[in-house]
């Protein structure tokens, strides 16, 4: 039951994109269409599961002080593997995702899960956490991709929707539409989850850089916010 909880919490309650507000860059950049959003989600999920497993397995071997560079090396290794597999088997998708595929390395979700979950939990739990978070990420991306593609281009995953096509608002697939849809989706999630307050701001607690970053700065910032 506990294992199921770990698996499911990433999908809605702690959805990395819509609730924790992590990984916003790929969420905005690759959601111009359903297919690229799905490809990005699957690629990031694969990296997330593998890196969670490896970091969890090595959690006693990695010295505490240099853990962040170690995590980055592990993650970068898996990203390169995914890049090469994609270039070999799905060259179209590789071109579509372009630089954002390499940028999975600096995706806050992956580093964040390593820092917050994998280094404290066993291999199986970490793998489940990776699957859950990855699924949550993929679902959020596909949802955003669907909204933007249907409204912006009048198609869904390339299938033409004749009823909507003539009324397509092309700005939704351009950059401003990404910000707009993302903002509205977060507002919707806030509305649905209201009562159980989700953290609305990017705070130090949800930031994987918190360990790297100057602690005093975070504390003074927190104090200022409390005032």
């Amino acid at each position, binding site marked *: 039951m506990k294992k199921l909880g770990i698996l499911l919490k990433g999908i809605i309650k702690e959805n990395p994109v819509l609730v924790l507000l992590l990984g916003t860059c790929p969420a905005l950049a690759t959601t111009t269409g359903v297919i690229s959003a799905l490809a990005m989600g699957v690629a990031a999920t694969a990296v997330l599961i593998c890196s969670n497993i490896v970091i969890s397995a090595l959690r006693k071997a990695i010295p505490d002080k240099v853990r962040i560079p170690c995590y980055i090396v592990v993650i*970068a290794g898996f990203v390169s593997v995914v890049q090469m597999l994609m270039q070999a088997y799905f060259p179209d998708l590789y071109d579509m995702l372009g630089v954002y595929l390499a940028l999975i390395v600096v995706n806050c979700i992956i580093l964040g899960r390593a820092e917050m979950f994998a280094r404290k939990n066993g291999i199986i739990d970490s793998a489940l956490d990776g699957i859950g978070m990855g699924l949550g990420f993929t679902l959020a991306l596909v949802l955003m991709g669907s909204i933007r593609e249907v409204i912006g281009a009048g198609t869904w995953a390339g299938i033409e929707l004749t009823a909507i096509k003539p009324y397509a608002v092309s700005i939704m697939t351009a950059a401003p539409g990404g910000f707009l849809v993302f903002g509205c989706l977060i507002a919707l999630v806030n509305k649905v989850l209201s009562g159980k307050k989700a953290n609305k701001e990017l705070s130090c607690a949800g930031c994987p*850089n918190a360990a790297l970053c100057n602690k005093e700065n975070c504390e003074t910032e927190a104090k200022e916010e409390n005032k």
Partner: protein
Amino acid sequence: MKELIVILMSAVLVDNYVLNKFLGICPFLGVSKKSDQAVGMGVSVIFVMLVATAATWPIQTYLLNPNGLGYLQTIVFILVIAALVQFVEIFLKKFIPALHKSLGVYLPLITTNCAVLGVTINNITDEYNFIQSMVSSLGCGLGFLLAMWLFAGVRNRLEESDAPECFKGMPITLVAASIVSVAFMGFGGIIDKLFA
């Protein structure tokens, strides 16, 4: 010369890294609450982008490519950038404490900033030479600074606005970012028209 100006201007205005390519969104949303912080972050990013490009371009061109190691790009670049940022921080702390005091707090955050890794990779993908790469990095950095600075002003107003309860905080900020992004779309044709 004209070519370099085109690269610079299009990086600042048309292909703005934050508002058009969605790179570096985390610091854009996180550190844009006050304009002095936003400018500090922007200047640090310009600085790190230039140093990172100066280091990664020769590595890719003279070390990885001749040895057929191009596939190591991602791993090597992120490690070089992380090491470089640490090194720059130590150097500044020791020799220019005043600058370290104003920029130091932002430097560790930049290690995992996707705009920095993005610009170094994009320079290689676009097959720029060394001078062009440096100019494009400068342009991207300036564009980042411009976006941060403008948005800090927008956000000041937003704090006092009366938004619906569920839109308060991040959602309304994103909607505002969308409008600023629309403004930047207006620069779309400017490069072709000005320099054609």
